[in-house]
């Protein structure tokens, strides 16, 4: 199922299919390991609803909703933890 990263729920895991971000922002997120093909799962949502911490290559990367919305993913299936 294809969607954007901001639409995932806690515990869900997905694979990045496209990055709509441009310029410095795209480069930084790629440097931090967020690339097409990378597996991402939702770890925690901030208590105020935004931003969200994602598990990327063993680290916890925090993205605001606007950024996550520009990252297209394919859902891999839920992880109930």
């Amino acid at each position, binding site marked *: 199922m294809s969607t954007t990263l901001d639409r995932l729920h806690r515990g869900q895991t997905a694979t990045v299919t496209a990055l709509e971000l441009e310029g*410095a922002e795209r*480069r*930084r997120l790629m*440097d*931090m*390991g967020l690339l097409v093909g990378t597996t991402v799962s939702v770890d925690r949502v901030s208590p105020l609803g935004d931003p969200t911490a994602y598990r*990327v*290559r*063993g*680290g916890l990367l925090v993205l605001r909703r606007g950024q996550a919305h520009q990252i297209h993913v394919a859902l891999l299936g839920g992880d109930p933890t």
Partner: protein
Amino acid sequence: MTAADSSAGTSPACGDCVLNNVSNLRELGVSPAGHDIVAAVAGNPNTGKSTVFNALTGLRRHVGNWSGKTVDRAEGGFEYRRRRYKLVDLPGTHSLLSTSHDEDIARDFLLFGRPDTTVVVVDATRLERDLNLVLQILQITDRVVCALNLVDEAERNGLAVDSRHLARELGVPVVPMVARRGTGMTELLEAVEQVVSGAITTRGKRVQHRDNRLEQAVSRLSEQLEREFPGVANTRWIALRLLEADPRVERAVADGTLGELSTAATLAAPPGGNTT
């Protein structure tokens, strides 16, 4: 002897001669006046990079638990086996490719500061992400020791790291350690000493680009650079920077200062020769 078969100070044969030998280390603190060797410490943020730096120099410099805290370059010194080292703490960065100020400092120092050796601190619990930086540094310099820090945390997280295999893959010594407890410091010093003295010949892994046209462009430019600047070790990386129109590297090519880098790899013979 190559890094692959020795794994530096981690092999038992070599470990004997350095264990319980920390008296060889003399901390020189803040004023590394007059030094034989320049060593850089690089790594991702939050890898314990500054703990390694502090342990080596005895310089009590605090750095916080998030990225970008060390903006200024910190320097300290120590003496080990009759060599005086100047140690330079580079800012923690995820990469040397993008455009942040921290990355410029780290990149410029590795390229133009010509450290005799670079210790790259890696968080064993986040190996995949941190190796990205190691592989980038290996494109600039071969003279690298990989400090595999936080192996206790990795253990706690149910991860076992095969450091010998990692050393074979990277082509440089890999020293497993727990910097905050001082575990592995002696082995790290010994590995640094061996890289500096030439007891270990490192052959750093060079990543091939998957894009064929890019690979061809890099090879082609790299050949031209080698002809123009014979002896410069990292022509592939410089070629890549030129393709990305990096102004700093373009300037170094245009004014010929790149040629001076060829002297960086040469090193005076160690006093008293190799101790092992």
